[in-house]
């Protein structure tokens, strides 16, 4: 491996890609990452899917949230999500789309209070998909649950079916959408697990932000890859699915709740 790296570094110097070697390039990329949180480098156990290749059921994307590291006054995951997906504060705050939100959970008997982000749990057996009358709510082969807005009629049945309140309804004529996250009036929307980033081999925006400027509470990875960090941790640590009794097998797991 080290030989290979050296070879590539030398090749990078010789072929004159701006004269930037691998190490220098990584340094520069790191500097960019500091300036642009949410887009930076992170340790990855997964790679970008090449063009022309469909999502595969060989992967099962999941998230692990350690709520003991989730701080009360920290909203970097929510802010990063809104920025990444082009979500804006609407005139009426209750109409603002929420792909992810922070919850405060308080036990009145003991006084124990903790905080956790909740987003689409990307279930193996999603209720939103089961109830959708048009087939707009669907699960991709790699387990990411999405809304096909092309055929969404905005009936909001999925919003009622989802026990996690993960879906929002867009009540406004949208402008300036992100090219990778089309959204508009009359459609239901929700967390995409940043499928556009995952397909590029990057962590979702919330996870990147949490690890960079937040509490470092979130881990993203492939639950079907036994060597991934998330697989190792769910195999060795006590983790919980919210409302596991419903049998939908969420892909998002929590620790400390």
């Amino acid at each position, binding site marked *: 491996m080290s030989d290979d790296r050296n070879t590539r570094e030398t090749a990078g110097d010789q072929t004159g890609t701006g004269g930037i070697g691998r190490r220098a390039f990584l340094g520069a990329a790191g500097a960019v990452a500091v300036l642009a949180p949410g887009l930076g480098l992170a340790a990855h156990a997964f790679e970008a899917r090449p063009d022309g290749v469909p*999502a595969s059921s060989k992967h099962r994307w999941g998230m692990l949230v350690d709520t003991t590291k989730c701080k009360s006054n920290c909203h970097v995951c929510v802010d990063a999500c809104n920025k990444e997906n082009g979500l804006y504060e609407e005139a009426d705050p209750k109409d603002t789309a929420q792909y992810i939100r922070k919850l405060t959970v308080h036990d009145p008997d003991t006084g124990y209070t903790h905080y956790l982000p909740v987003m689409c749990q990307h279930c193996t057996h999603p209720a939103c998909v089961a109830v959708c009358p048009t087939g707009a709510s669907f699960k*991709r082969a*790699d387990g990411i649950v999405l809304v096909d807005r092309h055929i969404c009629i905005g009936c909001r049945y999925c919003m009622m079916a989802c026990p996690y309140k993960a879906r929002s309804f867009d009540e406004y004529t949208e402008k300036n*959408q*992100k*090219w990778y996250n089309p959204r*508009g009036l009359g*459609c239901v929307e929700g967390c995409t697990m940043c499928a556009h980033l995952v397909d590029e081999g990057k962590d979702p925006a919330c996870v990147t932000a949490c690890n960079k400027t937040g509490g470092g509470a979130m881990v993203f990875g492939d639950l079907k890859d036994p060597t991934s960090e998330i697989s190792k941790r769910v195999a060795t640590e006590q983790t919980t699915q919210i409302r596991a009794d419903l049998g939908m097998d969420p892909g998002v797991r929590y620790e400390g709740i």
Partner: protein
Amino acid sequence: MAVMVLSAVALGSAAHAGSDAGAHAGWPHITKPIKGTHCVKPVPYMLRYHFDLLLHQREITLRKGVHGSKYDLTNCISCHVNKNANGQYIPINAPGQFCQSCHEYAAVHIDCFSCHATTPQGGGDDQTAAR
């Protein structure tokens, strides 16, 4: 019916393609692409079937998660969008622009841009650009 009208109009305007495109009173104004030398399919095919390509592509891109197709809507926009005098992109569904001009003439509503971005942002062919 609307499709028939649109294609008839589009083919008609193709005959006027060139420097005097849109000069004929009453015809839609088909703007020149800002880059590229040819479309992903021959122009007569695109005039008649572009919506079929997009309909097929949306299934592949969204539901199967395949990226990098030449039939992506982002690719259409990255070539056919125009810039104003200040060098800023004009939304492709603005009056007189590539998509809207023809569709307005044929009275066919475009649904694409109630959700999709109307200017290039580094998607499709421009994927390497800063995001």
